[in-house]
C-alpha cells in the first residue's frame, strides 16, 4: 500500500516536474539574447563558413521562424506522440544521443558514487568510532580541503600525479575501465569530502545515544551493541544523504567530462546550450527533471525500508510525501 502510493505519487510528480522544467527551459532559451539560428549554424558549420545565408536556411528548416507559441505547441504535440525530435546540430535523433550520453554518465556516476562510499564509509566510521583520533583529525582536514576545491582542480591534481608523473593511467579519453578510474576518482573525492563528515556525525550521534549504553548494561559488548543498534540507526541519515548526493553528481559532471574528454550528459547539455540546440535542451531538461524525481523516489524507498518511523508517518499522513 505504502509502496504503491509512494511510486504513484513520485511518478506523477516526476512527469509534472519534468514538464515544468522543460517549459521553463524553452522559455529561457527563447529569452536568451542573440539569434537562435545563427548560433545553431555556428555550431554546425564552424565560424569559417558561418554566413547569414546558412542561418536563414537553418531557421527555415527548423521552423524557428514560426511564432514561439507555435513552436512550443509543436514540441508538446511531438512529445505526446513520444517523439523528441532530432538535434538541430547533429541531425541525430535526440533519444539516441541521450541514450549514448546517459549511458556514459550513468556508468561514471555510479562508479564515482560507489567509489566515494568505498572511501567515505570506512573513514567516516573510523572517525566516528574514534572521534578526536588521528583518522578523525586527518580526514576532517582532508574533507575541508577537498570540499573547498573545485572538481576541476582535484582532477588536475589527480592527472598530474597518476597520468603525467606516474603514468599509471591515461590522462583523458574513454572506452576502457582504465579511462574511467581518474574521472570516477575525481567525482568520488568530491562526494566523499561531503559524505565523510555526514557519516562521522551520524556515527558519533548514534554512539552517544543512551540505547547503546543501555544495550551494554543489558550485557552486550561494545562492538555487538553498535552492530545491533548503531549501524541501522546511523544508516538512515547516511543513506538519505547518499541518495540525494546522486543529484548533486550532475553538476560535477560538466567539469569532469570536459577535463577528461569523456562523453556524458553534462558535456552534452553544455554543448547544446551553447549551440542553442533546442530539441536537445528540452529533452535534457525533461530527463533531468525525471532523474531528480527518480532519485527522490529511491531515497524515500530506502528510508521506508530502513526506518519504520517513516513507514508509520506515511500511513498516518496518507498524503504529502513532500512534507518530508
Amino acid at each position, binding site marked *: 500500500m505504502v509502496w504503491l502510493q509512494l511510486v504513484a505519487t513520485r511518478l506523477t510528480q516526476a512527469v509534472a516536474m519534468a514538464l515544468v522544467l522543460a517549459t521553463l527551459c524553452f522559455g529561457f532559451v527563447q529569452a536568451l539574447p542573440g539569434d537562435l539560428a545563427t548560433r545553431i549554424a555556428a555550431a554546425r558549420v564552424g565560424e569559417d563558413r558561418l554566413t547569414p545565408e546558412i542561418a536563414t536556411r537553418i531557421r527555415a528548416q527548423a521552423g524557428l521562424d514560426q511564432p514561439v507559441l507555435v513552436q512550443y505547441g509543436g514540441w508538446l504535440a511531438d512529445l505526446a506522440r513520444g517523439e523528441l525530435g532530432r538535434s538541430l546540430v547533429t541531425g541525430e535523433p535526440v533519444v539516441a544521443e541521450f541514450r549514448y550520453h546517459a549511458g556514459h554518465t550513468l556508468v561514471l556516476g555510479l562508479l564515482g558514487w560507489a567509489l566515494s562510499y568505498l572511501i567515505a564509509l570506512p573513514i567516516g566510521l573510523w572517525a566516528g568510532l574514534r572521534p578526536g583520533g588521528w583518522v578523525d583529525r586527518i580526514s576532517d582536514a582532508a574533507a575541508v580541503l577537498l570540499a573547498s576545491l573545485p572538481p576541476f582542480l582535484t582532477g588536475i591534481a589527480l592527472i598530474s600525479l597518476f597520468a603525467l608523473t606516474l603514468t599509471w593511467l591515461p590522462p583523458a579519453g574513454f572506452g576502457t575501465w582504465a579511462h574511467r578510474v581518474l574521472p570516477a576518482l575525481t567525482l568520488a573525492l568530491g562526494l566523499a569530502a561531503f559524505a565523510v563528515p555526514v557519516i562521522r556525525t551520524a556515527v558519533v550521534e548514534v554512539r552517544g545515544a543512551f540505547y547503546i549504553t543501555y544495550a*551494554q548494561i*543489558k550485557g552486550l559488548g561494545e562492538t555487538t551493541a553498535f552492530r*545491533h543498534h548503531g549501524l*541501522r540507526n546511523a544508516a538512515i541519515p547516511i543513506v538519505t544523504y547518499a541518495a540525494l548526493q546522486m543529484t548533486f553528481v550532475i553538476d560535477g559532471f560538466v567539469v569532469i567530462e570536459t577535463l577528461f574528454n569523456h562523453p556524458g550528459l553534462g558535456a552534452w547539455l553544455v554543448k547544446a546550450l551553447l549551440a542553442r540546440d533546442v530539441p536537445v535542451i528540452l529533452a535534457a531538461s525533461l530527463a533531468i527533471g525525471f532523474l531528480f524525481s527518480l532519485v527522490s523516489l529511491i531515497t524515500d524507498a530506502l528510508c521506508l525500508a530502513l*526506518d519504520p518511523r517513516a513507514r508509520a508517518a506515511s500511513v498516518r499522513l496518507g498524503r504529502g510525501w513532500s512534507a518530508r
Partner: protein
Amino acid sequence: MTNALCLDTLTIADAGGRLLVDSISLTVPTGSIATLVGETGGGKSLIADAILGLLAPGLSASGTITLGGLAPCAAADRSSLRRAWRSQVMVIPQEPARALDPIMRVERQMALAGLSPAAIGQALASVDLAPDTGARHAFTLSGGMAQRVLVATALGVGAPLLVADEPTKGLDDARVHHVIAWLRRAAASGRAVLVITHDRRVARALDGSLTVLKAGQVVEQGPTAAVLASPRTVYARQWLEAAPTRRDPRPMPAWDASEAPLLSASGLSFGWSAGRALFQNLTLSLSRGRILGVTGPSGVGKSTLGNLLLGLMRPTAGDVCWQGRPLGRDQAVVRHLRQRYQKLHQDPGSVFAPDQPVGRQLVRLARVRPGLDPALALPPLLDQLKVKPDLLQRGVTDISGGEAQRLALARLLLLDPAVIIADEPTSRLDPITQRDLLAVLTDLVDRQGLSLMLIGHDQSLLRAITDDVIALSASDSDPAPESGPFIPSI
C-alpha cells in the same frame, strides 16, 4: 544477609572541585529496598551514575563501591564498575524512551538482553503489557509503555541489584502504584533495589530504608517509616509537607462572564489513523481567570489535546475557537492571536538554546513582539517570579530545573499571553520546587486574569489547584491498568 550494594564515603566533585555528592555511605542488603530522596539537582542521579560507572568524564569520584560479592571497587574506576553490568547490577533508567532503540522491535531488544521468547512474553505480561507489544517498534511506545518494557527487561535479566532512577516520573497515579508493586515484588524475590525519586508518596509506599539528601549531603537516614513519622531536620519536614494546598474557591464574576471564553472547543476528535481515535467529541471551554486541569493515563493524548487547542495540529473533527472565533476557517485569527496563546513545556531545556546565555535569548524576543522593551519589562517580571537576575548570564544547562522553568515562564509572560497551556510543567521538579512554581502560576491567574490549562498526571495536585478537571480516558493503544488503590498524599 549479604549486601548487594555498599557505598563507602562516595564523593563526587565537578571539574571545579565543587562537591556534588559529599561522603555518602549506604548499604542495600539483598531483598531490601533503599530509597534516595532529595531536591532536584541534589546529586541523587549522580549516585546512580557512579554505581554504574557512567559518571561523566569531567566529574571526579572517590570512595568505594562494593557490588555483591565483588571486591570493593574505587568509585573512580569506571571500567571495573562497568564489568559488573548485568551480572551484578541492572538499571531502570530515568529516560525510558531513550534507552530503547527506536527502530528495533521490542522483543528483539529484550532478546538481545538474553531473554528467551517465553521469558519475554512472561516479562511483558508481568508489567501489564499486551502480548503484541513485543512486535512493536520502540518508537511507537508511549513513555509509560517504554518504562514498563524496561522494568520487564530489568526483572527478566535478574541481576542481584536493581537501580531505578526516578521510575515513576511522568506516570499517572495508577501506574505509579504499579511500579511500586513491581519494585516491591523484585525485592521480595530476593533482589536489592535502590530507588531514586523525588516523590514522597513513592518513598512511603516502597518502605525499606530512606536516605534524604540535600545539596549532596545526607540529612537523614533510617527506616522509611521512622523517618517519615518523625523527621528530625527542618529540610526533611519541609520536603514531606510540600503538598500543594487546596485552592480557595474564588468568586466567578471577577471578569465579565458574558464575554466569549478565551479558549473553547466543541466536538473535538483526533486520531493518528482512521478508526483509532485518541479522543472523540470533546467539548471544553476556558474563561478568563480560570484554571482547567487535564489528566489521564500516559499516552492518552493530553499533550496532543494541548497542541490542538494551540492550533499546532489540526483536529480530525470539531472546532477550536479562540475568543469565539474558529481557528480552522479564519486564518486571520491565528495571525492576530498567535502570541497570546502560549505553551509552557515540560522541559524548559527545550525552550532555550543550550549554548547561549538565557538573558540574551530573552532580549531577542523584541523581534517577535514589536514594542516590547525587554530591558524595561524583564526586571519586574523576574522580581515577581523570584528569579535572581544573575541567572540571565548563564546557559540553560547551568540552571536548576525549577529556575529554568521560571525563566521559561518569564519568556512567555514577555509575550503578554492570554492563555497558557502548561504541559506537565512540574513533573521534573521536586515537591518543594513544584509547590513554589504552581504558586507562581496560580498567582498569575488570580492577579492578572490569565487563563491556565494545566496538564498533569498527578490527580491530587490537579484537584487541589484547578477550577475544573477533564479526565481523558485510556485508548486501546495503551490499555489502562485496573485502578489500584489511590496512593494517598501525606
